[in-house]
């Protein structure tokens, strides 16, 4: 293009000025190709991994915020992570063992049994509660600034995992103290935990994105979780549940993916008999399907969050 030249544009200083500045603001660099194009999304779009990776520090910071804020201005601080399953197990001990006369499985004290169940159960419910509510609780942020929305529930999964690891360490200490030993089943522990996390986070993606439009879900969730607690082998083993419950109710435990996962978790940690292969396969498959379905739903509803929340 032919233009009338101005002396200012020939001076090298003006060309260099874009990289100079006062030193605090720093230079900026543009790319010649569009870095990103914003356009209406299609349902076929895949998960934007580039985005997630770019914001990975936010994931850690959000999880860290979650952990810190929970124990700020508490007297016992992080001890609550240990106290919760211990107190929960004590209640189970009284209700199921002392009153309900339910024995622990062979060679395992009932208290240790129920505590291990509760650790897995608490992991599951804490993901569900926190991740599902994370979108609504951070509606301020969602309507004000862009970041991959998936990070909110994911950060809850991360902070719940930190709690889980601490409580598993405490449980193993208690077990070692009471003279129990571990066997090679322990190597499968990550498998059960991964499946539990997938199941819980898949559900919470689903529930969380529903909650953005319909706050009703907020009221249903606690009730549903309470029912789930008794429909899963938490205070009792799957065997005990199946022998004591009327056979009309067996389908509840059979179709509950938590049955296989909880049994597997206890098998790895306490050295109990492993659940049969069909139960394991069923539980893990359902968890994977729930996770992918939740992710796809979240992806689809995500673009409306800022408009609806």
């Amino acid at each position, binding site marked *: 293009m032919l233009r009338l030249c101005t002396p200012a544009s020939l001076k090298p200083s003006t060309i260099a000025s*874009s990289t100079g500045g006062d030193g605090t603001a720093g230079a*900026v660099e543009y790319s010649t190709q569009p870095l990103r194009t914003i356009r209406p999304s299609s349902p076929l779009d895949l998960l934007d991994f580039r985005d997630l990776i770019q914001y990975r520090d936010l994931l850690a*910071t959000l999880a860290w915020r979650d952990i810190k804020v929970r124990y700020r*201005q508490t007297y016992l601080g992080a001890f609550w992570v240990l106290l919760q399953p211990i107190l929960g197990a004590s209640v189970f001990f009284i209700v199921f063992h002392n009153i309900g006369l339910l024995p622990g499985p062979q060679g395992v004290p009932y208290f240790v049994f129920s505590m291990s169940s509760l650790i897995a159960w608490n992991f599951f419910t804490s993901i569900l509660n926190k991740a599902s509510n994370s979108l609504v609780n951070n509606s301020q942020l969602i309507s004000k600034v862009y970041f991959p929305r998936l990070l909110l529930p994911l950060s809850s999964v991360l902070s719940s995992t930190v709690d889980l690891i601490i409580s598993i360490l405490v449980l193993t200490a208690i077990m070692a103290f009471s003279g129990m030993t571990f066997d090679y089943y322990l190597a499968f522990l990550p498998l059960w935990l991964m499946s539990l996390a997938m199941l819980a986070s898949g559900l919470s993606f689903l529930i969380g994105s529903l909650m953005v439009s319909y706050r009703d879900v907020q009221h249903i969730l606690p009730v549903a979780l309470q029912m789930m607690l008794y429909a899963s082998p938490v205070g009792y083993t799957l065997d005990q549940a199946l022998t004591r419950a009327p056979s009309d109710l067996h389908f509840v435990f059979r179709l509950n993916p938590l049955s296989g996962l909880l049994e597997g978790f206890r098998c790895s940690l306490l050295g109990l008999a492993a659940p049969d292969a069909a139960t394991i396969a069923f539980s893990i498959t359902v968890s994977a399907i729930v996770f992918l379905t939740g992710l796809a739903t979240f992806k689809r509803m995500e673009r409306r969050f800022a408009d609806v929340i």
Partner: protein
Amino acid sequence: MSSSLKKGDAQALPDYADQDYMILDLSPPPQLALSVRGLCKTYKIAQSIDDHVTAAEALAAWVLKGFKGGRYQDFKAIHDVSFDLFAGDVMAILGNNGSGKSTLLKLISRITEPTNGKIDLYGRVGSLLEVGSGFHPELTGRENIYLNGTILGMSNREIDREFDAIVEFAGVEKFLDTPIKRYSSGMSVRLAFAVDAHLRSEILIIDEVLSVGDQDFQKQCLERMRTLAQDGRAVLFVSHHLESCRELCNKALVLNEGSIDFMGDIEAGLEYYADLQQVNDIGLLKRSQAAR
């Protein structure tokens, strides 16, 4: 360089009128920062049919609504907007309430998704948050700097590098390890803006943040924004404070009912906007007279 031609340069220009040759402009063409093409955003707004009294009526209406897919009306918040923004440009977006300014900014910063059209971004976009929305009251000043920074898209490394500058800008050295909830509102506002102002993004979006803080701090903010723009950033600026628009911006875009009414120089833009408001006022007057 589009930014090299500013008000002050006019006197420095020698008179080329008597020369009979032209010089090829060898300076690099202006760097495109952002280009918007055919952008539309349509909201569906429900038409209220709240004339039912009893629960049964409400239920019937609800069933009917579900049956017919509801009665919705399209509302075009942004309609067919296209423009380019170059490096070093500071563009004021002017318009009355409801003209689509905020929606446009939300589209560019990816908070909400366009219904149609596209936006090409040639750099990272950073938007100055409404003050404090990225803060958590229980966390300390130090923790909140990291929280707010990462929410804005910075990495921890970038925040490490800018940390001292942020603290100095906000003037909160003594209270870094105090929870934000114990800060005075002025202090938290300063801290929030300090984090925002150290974003390393090429495209900066500023929506009505200057209305906070005391006189001194506002001056500090304006100063900071001027340096940001001089470093070659492209800035989109929304404010009802026309004086700061005039001071900061070199371009203007006037929105009216979701479409671009005017685009060009800031002075001309402000003039156009003033005229537009006058026309609107006269229209309002006529309407209210007609109603009487």
